[in-house]
């Protein structure tokens, strides 16, 4: 679901075809019939933005029929945990969960927490900053029993002492109230049942626009193919993430998979296919503003005054996040080496602090407000690839300077003289003050390094050829930039103050060759880490919090074990076991499957012989199997922690989800997800349909809207003007091009496969709007209008929503005004509206209208957009009349080849 794997991950898709050849059944659920659908055994369409309705329907089906894998669910998930007595579900509260403050549009997650004497837990990822007494909105008197002070805590409480945690998972969570019979009305299982009670097959059919039978064919397939003997895997891509409910889409899938026992077991899981190469790597060693390497939270200005406070707020009592300070101190040692000592908090104050939302979209909006002066784009083409790309062009024009490092002269480097706004007279080249520096970049075949892709697998690649002319690797640029800045600041009056973090940085990689290319392997060695004697570490269990170890990213520790580049292993698949552990290296600790303790039953035996993967070897007294066990290696299945145990020792022998504070798979998320403990169907921010499920909550109440003159909204129901933009718009990629086109549209081999931007519509839309196959269409939103060649195809299935036929308009987003294959960017049409958890844009589901003919190129473009917003009926009539007299294209008879 939410993935067009055959087109966008064709190399990985060979394994899906291999699985199919071996008898696996491929189900594809997606708004469009794609090349993936063509290969599937079953294809089911659905309306864009209704994935949670579909997945909620699956959850409903599983629970109603008691199809859950109870022997797995009971011990390994939080199904039996009882939730706070103040919890309320959206059906009780007109579409929101308890804790919602409509004024600030925020949730307080206290009522989502576990009941009983256990302290609050925080999530292994996401929003997991523990709040302390005195923090906003935290009332220490609210529930005196909620927090059990950890051993040794100062009973007086007070900021700075361990007991300052009001709640927080610093305390052990052994005392969670549970009901193993799953009957308690506030146990997670019953809450799930209640929450999804309205997600009946009939409701799913009506919301998603399909027949009940088609929905049930998927539900039955999953249920029958899960259990002791069989497992099912779910694959998703940005078709799930790029929504205002993006994180919740994946949460919904994880509930399905946990209920069916498909997590931590061979053939199971949820596979995130990343948008392009090493995107996984760029979150592990992050380019994200709110993370440090290894998913350590970036310190914030207000909550992390010093290392101690940081440690208190980010450390869990149980599992591997209990060692957060160890990871952070080792990171600080890697960065500031001998300068980082216990006396100076290991140079914790050298880390920058977050003072607000510094995500990409906010930064772009800040440019428009004159708050950002310089910007560097490394391999990113936002004026084509980001939502509301027109807004990005307007924003970049407000900068003082812009550095673009890319393979080719992408549109983000040339917008100032050839962008569509220049044609339309909205921007004038002479008036743009942005000084643009274009620096040619080396491609992956021209440099050494690693890719970290979907399955957390690091694979080393070697330079095959040298980069031409002035092209240099990103590593070269970053290294020499740092070196030169440091040299320039040498002797400055701010040497000991502002510039000290830079001067003390360990920035001494060996270089080689005529261009002084830094040794990429030396960087990987630093990321892997070393001990006080400089010996490479073998794994993160060797990390210490006393400053004796340095490690650039704790989850990558072991990638250079024994001083050998483990990521460069290339053993043939015929020569190694089924987990393929001699190929590359997977974090953490070369585990190829996370949470694989769950592949054995609570007693440590494989669930079935077929599905054996990791099991307890009684004689050896340790876990063994086909992979590195993702568990304490010698903790017996029936181990029960001491009441005051902390860290790894606080895990039970049946706590497979060892990154979670309670060791369980979270059907219910007591914290960490800012927009609700359970995924809930909300319509997209822009939808042609009213939310039929949750009262007055039309869209996700927590979605991040960014009002701006360049970022207006298309009206949605109940606003009667929703009919202005009556079609669902969805953007996507095709096999022929790569993302925003920097790697494909500028070279002939790929450009000739798909030279022109096109729009895909069903024959009924073509009839409604007077579109000609092969001709031109103008697609309009409140942001702007773009033009595209028309592809009339039945692959864009109409969906019957609430008894009415609803259509979608398909918009591949690769094109821009530069390169060989040119066209309007689909992203011009979409608005900047974001998921609240990860700030991702909603470009998989919005609304638009479509008109025959080409768009104006001059100032009349804005007039068209305005006129359509004011009076869409007149606008449509005018365009239809024009189209009848002169179509701008060369229409061909009929539609796509249908022999």
């Amino acid at each position: 679901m939410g993935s067009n794997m055959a087109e966008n991950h064709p190399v990985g898709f060979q394994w899906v075809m291999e699985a199919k050849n071996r008898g696996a059944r491929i189900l594809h659920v997606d708004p469009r019939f794609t090349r993936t659908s063509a290969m599937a055994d079953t294809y089911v369409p659905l309306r864009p933005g209704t994935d949670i309705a579909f997945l909620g329907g699956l959850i409903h089906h599983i629970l109603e029929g008691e199809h859950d894998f109870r022997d797995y669910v009971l011990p390994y998930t939080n199904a039996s945990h009882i939730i706070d007595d103040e919890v309320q579900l959206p059906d009780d509260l007109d579409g929101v969960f308890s804790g919602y403050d409509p004024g600030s549009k925020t949730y307080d997650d206290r009522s989502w927490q576990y009941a009983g004497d256990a302290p609050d837990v925080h999530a292994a990822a996401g929003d997991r900053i523990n709040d302390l007494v005195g923090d906003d909105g935290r009332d220490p008197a609210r529930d005196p029993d909620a927090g059990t002070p950890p051993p040794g805590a100062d009973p007086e409480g007070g900021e700075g002492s361990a007991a300052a945690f009001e709640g927080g998972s610093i305390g052990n969570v052994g005392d969670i109230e549970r009901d193993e019979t799953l009957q308690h009305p506030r146990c997670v299982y019953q809450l799930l049942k209640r929450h999804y009670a309205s997600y009946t097959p009939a409701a799913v059919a009506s919301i998603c626009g399909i027949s009940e039978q088609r929905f049930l064919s998927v539900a039955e397939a999953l249920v029958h193919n899960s259990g002791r003997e069989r497992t099912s895997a779910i694959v998703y891509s940005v078709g799930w993430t790029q929504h205002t409910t993006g994180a919740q889409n994946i949460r919904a899938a994880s509930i399905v998979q946990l209920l069916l026992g498909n997590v931590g077991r061979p053939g199971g899981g949820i596979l995130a296919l990343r948008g392009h190469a090493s995107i996984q790597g760029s979150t592990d060693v992050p380019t994200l503003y709110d993370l440090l390497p290894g998913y350590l939270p970036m310190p914030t200005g207000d909550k992390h005054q010093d290392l101690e406070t940081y440690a208190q707020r980010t450390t869990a009592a149980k599992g591997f996040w209990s060692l957060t300070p160890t990871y952070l101190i080792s990171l600080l040692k890697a960065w500031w080496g001998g300068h980082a000592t216990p006396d100076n908090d290991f140079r914790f104050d050298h880390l920058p602090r977050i003072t607000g939302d510094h995500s990409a979209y906010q930064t772009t909006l800040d440019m428009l407000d004159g708050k950002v002066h310089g910007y560097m784009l490394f391999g990113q083409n936002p004026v084509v690839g980001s939502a509301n790309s027109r807004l990005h062009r307007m924003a970049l024009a407000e900068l003082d300077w812009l550095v673009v490092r890319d393979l080719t002269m992408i549109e983000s480097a040339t917008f100032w003289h050839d962008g569509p706004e220049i044609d339309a007279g909205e921007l004038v080249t002479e008036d743009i003050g942005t000084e643009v520096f274009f620096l040619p970049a080396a491609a992956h075949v021209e440099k050494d390094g690693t890719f970290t892709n979907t399955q957390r697998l690091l694979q080393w690649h070697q330079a095959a050829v040298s980069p031409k002319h002035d092209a240099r690797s990103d590593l070269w640029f970053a290294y020499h930039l740092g070196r030169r800045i440091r040299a320039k600041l040498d002797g400055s009056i701010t040497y000991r103050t502002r510039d000290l973090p830079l001067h003390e940085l360990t920035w001494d990689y060996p270089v080689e060759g005529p261009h002084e290319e830094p040794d990429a392997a030396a960087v990987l060695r630093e990321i892997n880490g070393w001990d006080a004697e400089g010996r490479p570490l073998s794994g993160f269990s060797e990390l210490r919090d006393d400053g004796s170890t340095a490690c650039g990213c704790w989850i990558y520790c072991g990638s250079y074990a024994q001083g050998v580049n483990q990521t460069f292993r290339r053993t043939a698949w015929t020569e190694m076991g089924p987990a393929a552990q001699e190929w590359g290296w997977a974090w953490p600790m070369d585990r190829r499957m996370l949470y694989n303790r769950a592949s054995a039953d609570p007693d440590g035996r494989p669930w079935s012989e077929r599905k054996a993967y990791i099991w307890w070897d009684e004689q050896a007294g340790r876990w063994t199997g086909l992979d590195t066990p993702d568990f304490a290696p010698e903790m017996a299945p029936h181990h029960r922690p001491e009441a005051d145990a902390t860290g790894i020792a606080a895990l039970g022998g049946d706590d497979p989800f060892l990154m979670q504070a309670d060791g369980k798979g979270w059907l219910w998320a007591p914290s960490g997800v800012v927009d609700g403990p359970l995924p809930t169907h909300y319509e997209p921010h822009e939808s042609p349909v009213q939310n039929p499920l949750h009262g007055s909550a039309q869209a996700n109440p927590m979605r991040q809207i960014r009002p701006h003159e360049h970022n207006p909204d298309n009206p949605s129901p109940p606003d009667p003007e929703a009919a202005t933009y009556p079609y669902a718009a969805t953007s996507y990629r095709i096999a022929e091009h790569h993302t925003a086109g920097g790697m494909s549209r500028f070279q002939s081999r790929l450009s000739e496969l798909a030279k022109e931007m096109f729009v895909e519509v069903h024959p009924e839309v073509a009839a409604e709007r007077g579109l000609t196959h092969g001709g031109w269409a103008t697609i309009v939103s409140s942001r702007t209008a773009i033009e595209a060649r028309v592809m009339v195809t039945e692959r864009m299935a109409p969906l019957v929503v609430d008894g009415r036929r609803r259509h979608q308009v398909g918009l591949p987003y690769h094109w821009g005004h530069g390169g060989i294959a040119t066209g309007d960017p689909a992203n011009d049409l979409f608005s900047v509206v974001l998921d609240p958890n990860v700030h991702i844009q909603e470009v998989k589901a919005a609304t638009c209208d479509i008109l025959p003919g080409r768009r104006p190129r001059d100032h009349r473009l804005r007039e068209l957009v305005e006129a359509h917003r004011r009076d869409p009926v007149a606008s449509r009539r005018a365009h239809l009349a024009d189209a009848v007299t002169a179509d701008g294209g060369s229409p061909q008879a009929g539609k796509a080849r249908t022999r």
Partner: protein
Amino acid sequence: MTHSAHASDRLNHAGGPVPGTEGTRFGFFTDTSVCIGCKACEVACKEWNQVPERTDTGFTGDSMDNTGDLGADAWRHVAFIEQPRGHDAMPRAGLGPLVGGEARSAGNGRAGLEWFGQDPGLPPGAHGAEAIPQLPIFNGEPASPAEDGFRWLMSSDVCKHCSEAACLEVCPTGAIFYTEFDTVVVQDDVCNGCGYCVTACPYGVIERRSPGQPGGGGAFKCTLCYDRMKGNQQPACAQACPTDSIQFGPLEELRARADVRAEELIGAGVPGVQLYGHDQGDGVGGNGAFFLLLDEPEVYGLPPDPVTPTRNLGEIWRWVGVAAAGVVAAAGAAVLGGDR
């Protein structure tokens, strides 16, 4: 990418012909049932063979196909055929009823799984090495890619490397020849650009390249990567194909494999399965590059009954003789008559 480990002692680990296989006929088996339409074959072919960009392409509207057809500047061409609902040429698309899984697992090679169940550390039967997949019945109904009968067929077309290659037979300069691997190759430096081959090819594969392009005016087509084969490499398209839709190997092995695959699909209820270019008794003596199709050849733009034009040469000459004799006789009669 040959991950399915098709065993052949005439192919090396990289899928290329091993030394000493000269004299063996090599070819392609294109199994369109697993083609995902990624066009990696088109790109890999162009990149390796330095085939120029097509200048006349743009948006064709022909589904996802903007290449159009095979020619001097397109030696591989992926066809896309959308068969909407109600398409009556074929029965229901898809795999038919799934009962107990027998149909699907019939003839199901366990390629790529040799180590399952044999690893010393493995409990017996791990990963279902021996178990036959038991597919459940889904709602008691046959599931198909689209229950409304929509199909999207994709097929990578290529020169057929005919047993009786018409292009070769009509070539007046000897530029086209059979290689030691029984493939059909044009020698660019010998070709004089007469274009006889272009009209002779029953598939419309070979074409003269536009003037101005490298080798402009000469005839070009797929060489089955003759240069790569001589270097013990498999052709670029086959290597790039992620799903093994394009398979390279000794022709007889490919034919045997294709028979098994076709039976497997037919057994599973896939409609329209047929092998194309597989019959050595056909009008071109069979192809060195043959196909498994899921519909009639015409659907894919392939001629249903291709014939090498020169095949009837003897008969044509015989009739020419008869006609000439008739003309002579008539002329003689006229002359004789005129005398009278």
